[in-house]
């Protein structure tokens, strides 16, 4: 399973991407509960409207995807994002 966290926007609008490849059984065993804990069907991007310059997060895990304003990256989303930032391969989109 491939997990990508793409952070865009912000005052400087520099897009940063963190990618995790959960390949081994151990990886999957660790990442599956983190991914499953997120409310993928209820992700809500709309609350970005009243917070200009805040980061936007586009998150993918396998076939699942969600777009969230930074303000909504809490609870299980925060766990997923923080883990991806810590362990993922970091890149920037030019």
């Amino acid at each position, binding site marked *: 399973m491939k997990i990508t966290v*793409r952070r865009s926007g*912000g005052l400087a609008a*520099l897009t940063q991407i963190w990618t995790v490849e959960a390949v081994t059984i151990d990886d999957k065993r660790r990442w599956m509960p983190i991914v499953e804990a997120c409310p993928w069907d209820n992700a809500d991007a709309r609350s970005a409207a009243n917070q*200009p310059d805040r*980061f936007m997060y586009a998150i993918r895990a396998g076939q699942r995807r969600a777009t969230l304003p930074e303000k909504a990256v809490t609870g299980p989303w925060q766990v997923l994002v923080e883990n991806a930032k810590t362990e993922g391969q970091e890149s920037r989109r030019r």
Partner: protein
Amino acid sequence: MICSIVPPYMLRKLAAQDEPRLRAVARAAKESLLHIRSLQAARALAAPATPPGIRQAKPGPPKRTIYDAGTSEKLPGKLVRNEGEAATGDAGADEAYEGLGSTHRLYAEVFGRNSIDGAGLPLDATVHFGRLYDNAFWDGRQMVFGDGDGQIFQRFTKSLTVIGHELAHGVTQHTAGLVYRNQAGALNESMSDVFGVLAEQFLKQQSAEQASWLIGESLFTEQVQGAALRSLKAPGTAYDDDVLGKDPQPDSMDGYVRTSADNGGVHINSGIPNRAFYLVASALGGRAWEAPGRSGTGHLQVAPCRPPARSAASPRRRRPPPRSFSAPDPQSMTPS
């Protein structure tokens, strides 16, 4: 509107019909004529007076409060400096205090606007937000500034243009209310960039020619190859760095970027109206906060009466490709 399609002289002829079979037509024609008269009356009304907020109100002094989040992400944080209190000795807190004062002065002295909402709204700001936080934002009620990661960014209060930019988001929220997505969002961003540079130019008393027209000068560390985050004078040239890549801003509609990132590229396509503002200001010459800046605040006031440039309500509708936009040629413009 049907009333405009049938010319009034024809409506008058129809309205005068007496024949029974034409009675319904005559009645409809009379109604249309009445409607036209009300439209003409509306058009004949004098143009609305100068919108409130432009040289009318008597702005009061600022009411600043600076908070310190102490690298947490809790807002507002601990109060560190109230209006009128002595400097704290903390660079971020004092820069925020001074920057809010300078921006408040621009709105008060040049535009006669009493703070963000025109009614003396207190100016609240939090510094030291988050850990190595590479950003600054307006949360709908207050300004928030991060310290930067130290590798690419230094603290975000270092540039007055950034403080002015964030405060202007509050002004836009209380006036034009431009939707923060796609083209309306790019206009929203551009308004903040314009008032950000004007705050700096006003403080330094610089002419359009003397000014740098840069947003976020001195924010990058020395490791970054770049002058600033954006350039209103030359969008797309603010930085070109091995790690960050090149400034992606277009300077005309020919380069309009369609993207799902950044709320539809609001910080990218803002280069287009930014460059337009610069061209007008440099063609008029002198101080940009005078004629061009005033027309900017005028637009913020008038905008709510009109439909938004592009609303976020219909992002999926197919649209023809954007028409090419040619910015005014400074040589051909005459100062008024």
